């Protein structure tokens, strides 16, 4: 379940809305830091929180060049997109409404890991 209070952080909201701009595109941590002007610690805490709540899909690159390690990439899950739409639509969502967003898993697992 997602409670609104757990998603009320500015960084978390910024990450959701930032990812929602191109919901189908996989994004990377360093890129998101620069795009959202977020300090890496805040970004990764927000990403972990979203993944915990099932709002984020995370997966490793399947084919990485030999000269660098494979990168972790992110995009909003179905419930994440629904929640982003709710966020973008208007004022803060009451907890009861936020809880009802799209069948969110309690303990999501990272994909491709």
């Amino acid at each position: 379940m997602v409670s609104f209070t757990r998603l009320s952080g500015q960084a978390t909201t910024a990450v959701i809305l930032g990812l929602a701009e191109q919901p189908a595109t996989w994004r990377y941590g360093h890129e998101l830091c620069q795009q959202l002007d977020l300090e890496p610690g805040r970004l990764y805490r927000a990403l972990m929180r979203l993944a915990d709540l099932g709002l984020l899909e995370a997966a490793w690159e399947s084919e990485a060049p030999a000269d660098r390690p494979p990168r972790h990439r992110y995009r909003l899950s179905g419930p994440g997109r629904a929640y982003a739409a709710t966020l973008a639509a208007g004022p803060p969502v009451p907890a009861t409404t936020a809880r009802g967003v799209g069948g969110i898993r309690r303990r999501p697992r990272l994909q491709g890991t």
Partner: protein
Amino acid sequence: MAAWLVWRAWWRQAGVRLSALDGPGRLLAAAAATLPAGRRDWGEAMAAELAQVPVQERGARWRFAAGCARAAVFPPGGSRVAVGVAGVAVAATTAAALATGAVLPAGRVFAPTFIGVVGGLATLAVARSHRAGWAWPGAAITGLGLAGVAACMAATGYYLAEFPAYQRADPPATLASLPPVTAAVLAVLLAGCLWLALRPPRWLLPDRRARRFGVGMAVALVAGFVLTTSRQVLGNPPGSEGMVFYLLIGPILVVLTGSAAAAAVGRSFRSGLWACAWAVVLGAPLLIAAWLAEALRWYQQGQGTVLDRAGGLGVGVNLGDAVWWPLVFLAVWAVPLGVVGAAAGSARARERGDPASTT
């Protein structure tokens, strides 16, 4: 020698990989190593993104690594609960300070320090939790750890109530049985042992046989101590006077051989280290409790201090001795012996041709 053995084992496993990293990479690797098991992937993800920051931009790399390290050390999940736990810890510490100040003045440093450290550890654990529950070290470790800490607390409380100070004949003086620094050291030691017995870090847990060896070694250390003091009281000392003799010999017999056996059986240097660590963690509070209990018996029979049979000192002097001497001997003497034993045991396993014994 022990430090060199530990360094060599660490270098074989992680040193070569770390040597290829720059400062920010090492900082991030160290912080990522503290992540709970369920979040390990995030550490690798951060390291992969650090590789995207150009090596020439050293400031940017340090900033990126420091930010990621903060997220790794304090991942999300329990911050709200942690605030509540921290509040309870502060309230309990304050209450302990007020209560002991009124009821047991000699314990006014020990009791609040103990509760404060336990509360701090609980707050840290909750702040870093990730719904994964805690790693259960097993009934034997938890039971022995709780028994040791409880016995030590009870004995300390008894001494503080009955012998808050002692007389020294030469030069004449009245001294506190548990001075503030000793009280703080004992409190931190007991809180740490309690925490390790209840919620140990995962790197202490992988080898069940090593844990069993550690439990056995702790029991053997304390049993040997009690047996030796009984022989001393009966007027049949095995060596020099007092228990300094045992503090020197006991760790050789128990920790050195036990760690070697654990390493040989576990076919790993680390198995020996884990067994040694558990022996020290579980043995320390039990040894202090046994020391304090035996001291009463020694004084009833006019034997002087447990440490060296010194006369002219009140029984309360044993409280400080029971903290410092076992602590010093376990840390400075027993742990290096355990490391050497682990190296010897793993070398023995290697001679038998087991490739796993190189770590």
